[in-house]
């Protein structure tokens, strides 16, 4: 069995299993806690509260006017990184091919050169975010091993993806195997660390939007 065979076979199966079991475990442990009922008369109807929750899932992506100046760098780096990652995953031809093989859906890919440039920008944003985490007093105070491990587990697929596109330091099969393995490491880490925020963001923003709509509070 070659490294690529392992990555495409048993490695992928293990990663999928850990990801699914881990996600179910983490979500059920949160949702099975006892919820205190809220008995005060709501300012909004149930439908209004649901709409409030749905709206906040999107609206929290854009900080309010009075905050923008103070968190400009954070917004810039975070936007480049998240949009870049999204574009690479859903715009790169090889990724679209994998998605097509998995679920049968397909769409037009971005030119390879564009994806490479976006990958470079994403990588640069990630490095800047890491430096900021180490240097900025607030971020340094808040940071734990989870933050640095999560950064590493995202950084590796981006780097191996860039190397793979250029086939620079090794052969295609080796680089592809390393790229797939790095993605599998990320999948395995996802339910245990901060990477989980990619899933939790919908639930946490939605919950706040729902609760704040009840009070008519600012969202």
């Amino acid at each position, binding site marked *: 069995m070659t490294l690529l065979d392992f990555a495409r076979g048993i490695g992928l199966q293990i990663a999928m299993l850990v990801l699914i079991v881990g996600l179910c*475990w*983490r979500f*059920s*442990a*949160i*949702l099975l*806690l*006892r*919820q*205190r*009922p*809220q*008995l*005060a*008369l709501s*300012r909004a109807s149930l439908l209004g509260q649901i709409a409030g929750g749905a709206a*906040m899932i999107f609206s*929290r*992506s854009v*900080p*309010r*006017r*009075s*905050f923008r100046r*103070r*968190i400009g760098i*954070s917004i810039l780096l*975070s936007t480049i990184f998240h949009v870049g990652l999204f574009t690479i995953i859903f715009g790169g031809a090889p990724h679209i091919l994998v998605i097509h093989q998995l679920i049968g859906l397909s769409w037009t890919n971005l030119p390879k050169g564009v994806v490479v440039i976006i990958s470079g920008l994403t990588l640069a944003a990630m490095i800047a975010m890491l430096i900021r*985490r180490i240097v*900025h*007093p*607030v*971020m*340094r*105070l*808040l*940071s*734990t091993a989870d*933050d640095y491990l999560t950064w590493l587990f995202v950084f590796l697929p981006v780097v191996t993806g860039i190397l793979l596109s250029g086939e620079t330091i090794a052969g295609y099969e080796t680089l592809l195997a390393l790229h797939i393995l790095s993605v599998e490491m990320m999948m395995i880490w996802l339910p*245990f660390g*901060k990477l*989980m*925020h990619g899933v*939790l*963001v919908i*639930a*946490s*923003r*939605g*919950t*706040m*939007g729902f*609760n704040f709509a009840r*009070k*008519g*509070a*600012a969202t």
Partner: protein
Amino acid sequence: MNANIKPPPPAAKTPDAGQVALAMQGFVSDFGPTAALALESCVHCGRCAEACQFYVQTNEAKYTPIHKIEPFKQAYEREVSPFAFAYRMLGLVPKVTGAELETWQSLIYDSCNMCGRCSLICPMGIDIADLVEQARHGMFEAGLAPPDYLGVLAEKEHATGSPFGLSVAKFQDMLHAIGAAHGVAMHVDEARADIVPTVSSIDLKTYPGSMAAIARILNHMGASWTFRTDGFDADNVSLTAGDRAGQRTTTLGIVRAAIACQAKTLLMPECGHSFTEMRWEAANAFGKELPFRVMQITEFLAEALSEGRIRVNKVHQKATYHDACQVSRRGGATAAPRAILKALGVELHELEDSGDEGWCCGGGGGVALINRAAPLRDKVFQIKRRQVEATGMDTVYTSCSGCRQTLDHGGKATQWNKSVASLLELVANNLKD
């Protein structure tokens, strides 16, 4: 404010193992799905610091809002979180220590107004202000509320229903004296009334004119109303101290008093946290939806003005307005004071950050009641001072006596020549005959 208050007890010793255990019990009792989701979601981005006046004014990282609840978060991870067993077994999350709780006491109490700006900026939708409120429960139950003013007031409120320990007889005397001094008829302890106004102990001690103002307006409306001496002080210092039992006792006293006279509306005074408590928490303490409406005074006035039940003269004045965080940003009544000012003909010059995005006065969350926090409070007051001065206005209206008092104190401490005034009193002083 300092009358009847004992001197602060001596500085607390490092919490012992029993206190740490009590704090942990208190923390764990608050972990429901909403708190868990919030604690699981933080990405350590640090944006909340930039929304917090304590960080913005000091540049000290320890004032980062999410950092202020670190022991609470640690308790969650170790005792309740999905991987708690692994964290304990592998020693990945250490036990909270007495020394940590001692350190965090000032972060959880002295440097958080529970104003919710951090909740508004959080990209993950974490209501950090709510987490601070919950974290204070465990701290209080372990005897770790600030030992000076706030702790003393909460104890007195727990025992008597009033943070100043006012007796029913004393309150009755005060109301009649205020009525006589302001030439307004007071309704006290009537058997039936549609509207029951409550008061803030800050008004009782410092701004008694506000009670005369409520009476004058309700009389002007021809309303059926009464103060109830069996449930009058809505201040609920216990809420900000983290005393769940005292909070419940105070709240239920007011609920029962309103029910006793078959009130249709419970009117909350110019006070932020009391509105939060009665509007959103009282029903939970009561065990079912309240049989009356709970309205903050600005909502009530705005509604009555729009329906023509209150008629006012135009004042043709220019002024700015300071929003009480619990009424506007967190209470959903941001539009009400602006509607009142418009009805009065006041030309409103908004602060640079106003309405939902306004900065706290610095005294919210009980910080105004922590003597040792005064230097920090004065430091954060500078934001409000700068923004008021930038409007060029001489008068700042507000509808929270806690804010009013903090702004007054901040002004005195820095020789500020601005006038801080009550929106309620502005309405009462300009009623049409």
